[in-house]
């Protein structure tokens, strides 16, 4: 079943989305829809605006034009903190807060005055392959383990959409395969809607339902993984 068939209404939608900083068009008039349970990969060369585009989706940066809708609602109508809880993000480097793994998992829910119970922490860690490690100090984690904690921490907020910004680019091959498998599992188990930025086209092929190609901030091409990645591409 394709992602398009899974849900009709887009969970996340951008319309003519743009961001211009100091005269540079980082994101230029990008319109795209992401449906429930769909994994959309954003690919393109360095400096093409992939990460800038992603940062606009949870409003870490402010669009200078166009709009983003979450669940059909202009996201400027949603309080930023609530928006960011619903649109989780995992960055290239896992920035973990000092303390234990469970401290990190509890960070998001604590912002809403909610304490994650032991059972939920254990369940989240089980999902990311770190069962029984709740009390471990994050300073002693490998890169791959830290990235798993980062994914679990984002999931602890029960987001509707998960944004992944080059989540494996700082990892070695073994850790990369592990995190990729984790992403596939999470998406498969929970029909989580994902937007993943990657410079690794084969990875986009392994993880995504659809791929969009950005170039100089503009949407150059969008389509199914097969259409975009396997089509004759003079730029490749």
């Amino acid at each position, binding site marked *: 079943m394709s992602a398009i068939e899974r849900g009709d209404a887009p969970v996340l939608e951008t319309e003519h989305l743009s961001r211009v900083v100091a005269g540079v068009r980082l994101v230029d008039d990008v319109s795209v829809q992401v449906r429930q349970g769909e994994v959309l990969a954003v690919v393109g060369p360095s400096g093409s605006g992939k990460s800038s585009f992603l940062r606009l989706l949870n409003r870490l940066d*402010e669009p200078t034009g166009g709009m983003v809708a979450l669940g059909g609602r202009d996201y400027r109508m949603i309080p930023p903190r609530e928006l*960011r809880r619903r649109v989780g993000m995992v960055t290239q480097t896992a920035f973990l807060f000092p303390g234990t793994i469970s401290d990190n998992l509890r960070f998001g829910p604590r912002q809403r005055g909610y304490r994650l119970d032991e059972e939920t922490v254990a369940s989240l860690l089980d999902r990311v392959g770190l069962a029984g490690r709740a009390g471990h100090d994050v300073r002693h984690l490998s890169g791959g383990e830290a990235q798993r904690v980062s994914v679990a921490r984002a999931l602890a907020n029960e987001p509707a959409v998960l944004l992944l910004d080059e989540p494996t680019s700082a990892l070695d091959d073994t850790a990369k395969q592990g995190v990729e498998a984790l992403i596939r599992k999470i998406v498969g188990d929970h029909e989580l809607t994902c937007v993943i930025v990657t410079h690794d086209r084969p990875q986009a092929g392994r993880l995504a339902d659809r791929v969009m190609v950005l170039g100089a901030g503009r949407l150059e091409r969008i389509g199914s993984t097969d259409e975009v990645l396997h089509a004759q591409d003079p730029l490749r």
Partner: protein
Amino acid sequence: MLKTLFADQVALGVAQAALATAVALVVMLAARARAIHLERDIVVALVRGVAQILAVGSVLMLLLRGPRWTGVFILIGMTIAAATTSARRARGVPGAFRVSLSAIGLGAGSVIALMAWAGAVDTAITALVPIGSMIIANAMNTNSLALNRFRSEVESHVGLIETALALGASAKETVSPYVHASCQASLIPAIDSLRSLGIVWIPGLMTGMLLSGSSPVYAAIYQFVMIAFIFSASGITSLAGTLLIRTYAFSPAEQLTLRPEPSVDG
């Protein structure tokens, strides 16, 4: 020795200034010999320093004949100048001038007002302006240190701050550790001044009082009073400055605006 050569006070002052300048120039030459080029900075600083202090002396001479309230205007002018200097140090920090003016105005202003009300400082211009300027200058230094440290802390923790924002944390909470660190660091000089008073240094005010024949015990107590008030003014400035700058580091949509450079990645 100079006193024996110059009977007139102004001539003596000029001779002493020439000696002090000569020593500073020798230091400059010594630095130059080690390929440390401070020539321009030192010459400009010396010329500016002498011009500014002479201008202040001349203005004071005129104002001494004016009513007491003119002292307040002089201190307000000094506060604006201090805020401008401090804001320059914090270049790149959004709202640096407004934050500096508010913080220095609140810290120095409240303490000077309290001192005047309590009689800890005479409201005559000759006393209020020099003592007030000491308090404003120290508040300015504290504010510069606080803003500078805050900027460095935030710029080196952008990843952690934005991660916390992305998890739904409030802007205030994400920079809270850096606000504390900046406040503590900015108060180190004021605390050290208080701690080392009389052991490491005998401040100028006490020296002046001793030279003018005051009781050494009273001069010592008054100096402590001054340093304690300076500490209070610095503390209020630091607390106010670091709390205010927190709001300027973010946009209304709680996006971090205090960044090393705009995000032009990927």
